[in-house]
C-alpha cells in the first residue's frame, strides 16, 4: 500500500466520521437525550456538515487518480465559503472597526481579500483541471509534452502587475488620510491634545494645562498621568507620539491605529473613537523584557467629561495634603 492510498483511506474515514457525527449521531443524541449536549462544529461554523458530506461522498465515489483531482477542486470551494462567512464570524478582526480610519483600513483589507480569493480559487481550479484531464485519460493514450506558452506567460505576468499597481494606488488615499499632516481632519488641525510618551514599560501621558496648547517641551501647569488617556468620543483627536528610550508602537486594535514611536521623533497621530467607552492601547513593538506589561487604556467620553477629568487631574496635581477648610 503506498502513501497516496493510505492518505485516501485516512481522509475517507475522517470525512465520513465527521459527516456522520455532524449530520446523524450528534443531532440524534442531542434530541433524544435531554441532559446531553454534544458540541457540533456546524453550530460554530455554518455549513461544516455539508462540506464534510461532499468530501465523504467524493472520497468514496472516485478512483484514486480522480480523487486527487477532485481534492484540488474541493479546497477552492472551502476557501470561497470561508471568505464569505468570515466577516460575519469576526474571524479577521478583533472587533468591528470603531474609527474612521478603521472603516477605510478594513475596506482595503476586504478588497485585497477578494483579489486574493479570486486568484487562489482560479489557480486551484486550473490545477484541479490539469489533474482531472490526466486522470480521465485512457491507459494507452500518448503522453503529450508542452514546451510552454509565451503568450500565457506574458498574460500571467502583466495581469498580476496591474493588480499590484491597482492595490498600491487604491491604498494611497487611505495612507495619506492617516499619515499626512495636512490631510488630517479639520477637527485636529488645532493641534494635539496630549503627548503620549512611550517608555519601558508604560505609557506616560502629558496634557497641556487646560486652556493652553501642548508644547513639545514640558510647561508649568502641564498635567501628567500614566497608562490612561482620556479623549472625546466621536471627534477626531490628535496626540504627539514619542518615546523616551527604545522603539515602541502605539496600537489601538479596535480603532485600527498603529504607529511606531521612534526615538528622537515627535510623531503626530490622529484617531477617533466612534463609541464612548474603554479602548485597549498596546505596544506592538517588542521593546524589551517587559514588553507585555505595556498596556494602557484610552477612555472615550463626552467633551464635558474630558474637561471634568482634566479639572480633577489638575486639582490632584496641586494637592498639598492640607484639608481644605477655607
Amino acid at each position: 500500500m503506498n502513501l497516496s492510498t493510505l492518505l485516501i483511506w485516512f481522509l475517507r474515514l475522517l470525512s465520513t466520521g465527521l459527516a456522520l457525527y455532524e449530520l446523524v449521531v450528534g443531532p440524534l443524541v442531542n434530541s433524544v437525550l435531554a441532559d446531553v449536549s454534544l458540541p457540533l462544529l456546524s453550530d460554530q461554523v455554518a455549513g461544516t456538515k455539508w462540506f464534510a458530506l461532499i468530501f465523504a461522498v467524493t472520497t468514496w465515489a472516485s478512483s484514486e487518480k480522480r480523487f486527487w483531482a477532485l481534492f484540488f477542486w474541493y479546497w477552492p470551494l472551502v476557501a470561497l465559503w470561508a471568505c464569505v462567512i468570515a466577516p460575519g464570524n469576526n474571524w479577521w478582526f478583533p472587533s468591528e472597526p470603531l474609527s474612521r480610519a478603521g472603516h477605510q483600513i478594513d475596506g482595503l483589507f476586504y478588497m485585497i481579500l477578494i483579489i486574493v480569493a479570486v486568484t487562489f480559487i482560479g489557480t486551484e481550479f486550473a490545477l484541479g483541471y490539469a489533474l482531472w484531464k490526466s486522470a480521465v485519460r485512457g491507459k494507452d493514450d500518448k503522453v503529450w509534452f508542452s514546451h510552454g506558452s509565451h503568450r500565457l506567460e506574458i498574460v500571467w505576468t502583466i495581469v498580476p502587475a496591474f493588480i499590484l499597481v491597482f492595490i498600491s494606488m487604491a491604498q494611497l488615499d487611505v495612507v495619506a488620510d492617516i499619515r499626512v499632516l495636512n490631510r488630517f481632519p479639520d477637527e485636529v488641525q488645532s493641534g494635539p491634545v496630549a503627548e503620549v510618551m512611550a517608555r519601558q514599560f508604560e505609557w506616560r501621558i502629558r496634557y497641556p494645562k487646560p486652556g493652553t496648547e501642548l508644547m513639545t517641551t514640558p510647561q508649568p501647569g502641564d498635567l501628567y498621568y500614566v497608562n490612561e488617556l482620556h479623549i472625546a468620543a466621536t471627534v477626531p483627536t490628535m496626540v504627539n507620539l514619542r518615546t523616551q528610550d527604545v522603539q515602541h508602537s502605539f496600537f489601538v486594535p479596535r480603532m485600527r491605529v498603529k504607529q511606531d514611536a521612534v526615538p528622537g521623533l515627535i510623531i503626530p497621530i490622529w484617531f477617533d473613537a466612534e463609541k464612548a467607552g474603554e479602548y485597549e492601547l498596546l505596544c506592538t513593538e517588542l521593546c524589551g523584557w517587559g514588553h507585555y506589561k505595556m498596556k494602557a487604556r484610552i477612555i472615550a467620553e463626552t467633551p464635558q467629561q474630558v474637561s471634568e477629568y482634566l479639572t480633577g487631574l489638575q486639582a490632584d496635581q496641586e494637592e498639598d495634603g492640607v484639608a481644605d477648610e477655607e
Partner: protein
Amino acid sequence: MNTQIRKSLNRYHMISKKDFATSGSIQQTAWLCLAMLATVGCSDFEASFSISENTRSLAAEAQNGTGESPGVIALTEEKFGNPQSLKAWTKLPVNWGGTSVSVAAVGSDGDAGTSGESAEVETADATETPESGDNKVTLQVPDESISLPNTVSSLLVSSGESAGQSVAVTSWDASTGEAILATKLVLSAGDQCTLDAGKGLQEGRVLYMRHCSHCHGTAGDGNGPTAQYLNPRPRDYRHGVFKFTSTNDMSRASRNDLTRVLRYGIPGTYMPSFLLMEDDELEAIVEYVRFLAMRGEFERKLVVELSSDYSKDAMVSRIEGGETRDEIVEELAEFLELDMPESVDYVGNDLQEIWTAAETEEARVIPTVARVPDTAESRRRGRELYLSKTLNCADCHGIDGAGNGPQTMAFEKNPITNEKYNEPGLHDVWDNLNQPRNLQAGIFRGGRRPIDIFCRVYSGIKGSRMPSFKNTPHEDIWHIVNYVLSLPFESDPGATGSLASSEVAGGAEAGD
C-alpha cells in the same frame, strides 16, 4: 611510516566498530531522554525564599541551628513558611484575607447548636452517620455589609474549643451559610471562624510571582532574573524600607504609599505603572509585599541578635582570642535554646508595632500650613533656603539643582564595613550608588504633587542619603517645594538673574 598509518587506521576501525556496537544503546538513550524531557516538563516548579547574605555571614550553626534549637533559617521558615506553603504569623498586621464569620448553629436545621451548647461535628462516614446534617454547620457574617463568598474550600476556627484548627469544607451554600465539614470538629454557636483564611495572601503571591518577582525576586530581595539589567536596581524589601512614603521619617511605608507606587509607577526607574490592575489585585499584591518586607526584616533582626558573637568573622576572632570552637557552639546552643524564643517574640512585637503605626494618622505627614502661593517671591525664598548653610541642599543637588553637588564627587565610606566605596558619590542602604536627583529634569520619582515634594523634604527619602528636614518650618518647606517645582522651567537655573526671569511665569502661575 607504514606501521604508523596502520596503527592509526586500526585505531580508526576500533573506534568506528565501538561506535557501531553502541549505536543501539544511543537510540535507547535518546528515547529515555525524550521520556525524561516529557516528564520533567510536567513537574511542578518549586520556588524558595533565598537566604539573605546577612544570614550567610553567620556561623553555620547560627544559620542552621544546633541540636533541637532552630537557627535563623528554620525560625524564619517557621514564622513565614515558603512560597509553596506560606505561613500566617497572625501577630503581624497583615491582611491575610478570607471572610470572618461566626458559628450560628451546629447540626442539621439548627436544632442542635442554637442553644450555645457544644456539639460534635461528625466526619462524613457513610456507615456510621448516614445523615449529612451532623457535619453541617451554619455560619453567619458579623454584619450586613459583608457578604458570604460564593465558593469556600476551608474553615479556620479562631475561638472556642477547636481554636486554631483548620478543616476542609466539602459543600457550601452561600445563600444560607450552611457548610458541610470534612473532618470532626467540636464547634459551638458563637465560635469565631474564618472562611478561606489566608486567601488574600495566596492571591497576592500568585500575582506577585507573575508580575513582580522577575525583578524583585521571590523573597523580595530585589534580585530576580531581570534585575541585573536595571539601573536603578529594583527595591530589596528585606530592610522593610521603602523610599517614597507619605509617612514621617521614623515610620514604615503605609499601604497607601505602596498602592500609589504600584498604580502610578516610579518615573525615572524601571518600576512601571500597574494602573490597569483591579483594586483588589493591587490590595493583594501590597499585602504580599508587606509580608515579604516583614519576613526580610524579621530575618535581618534575628541576624543582628546573633552577629556580634556568632558571625563567621566573630568566630574567627574569638577563636584567635583563645576560645575553642566547641565552646562557642555550646554557648550558641544555649543562646538559641534559652534566649532566642524571647528574641523572636521581641522582634515580632516590634514588627507588629512599627507596621501598625505606619497606618495611623500620627505617622502621616500633614503640613500644618497650606502650600504657600507659588510666587516669584516664594521661589526666591526657596532658593535662599536651598542654598543656605543650615539646609545645604546644594551640597548634593548642586547650586543649579542639576544633581551635581560636591558630595557627588566625594568617596563615601560604607557605614557597615567602614571601607571606602570604589566609586565616588552617594550610596543608599542597599549599597547602590544613588546620586542626588537632577531637579531640572522634571522627573520626580515619588510624585510631582506639591505634597509629594513636601514629604520628600520633610521625611527625607528613606534608605537614601536624602535626610529628613522635619525641623524646618513648614512654610519654609513650601518655599523650597515651589522653588524645586520651578527648576525644570528655569531658562538659566542657578544664575542669580534667573529669579527675575521667573517672576513672569510666577505671576501667571499665581493667577489661577
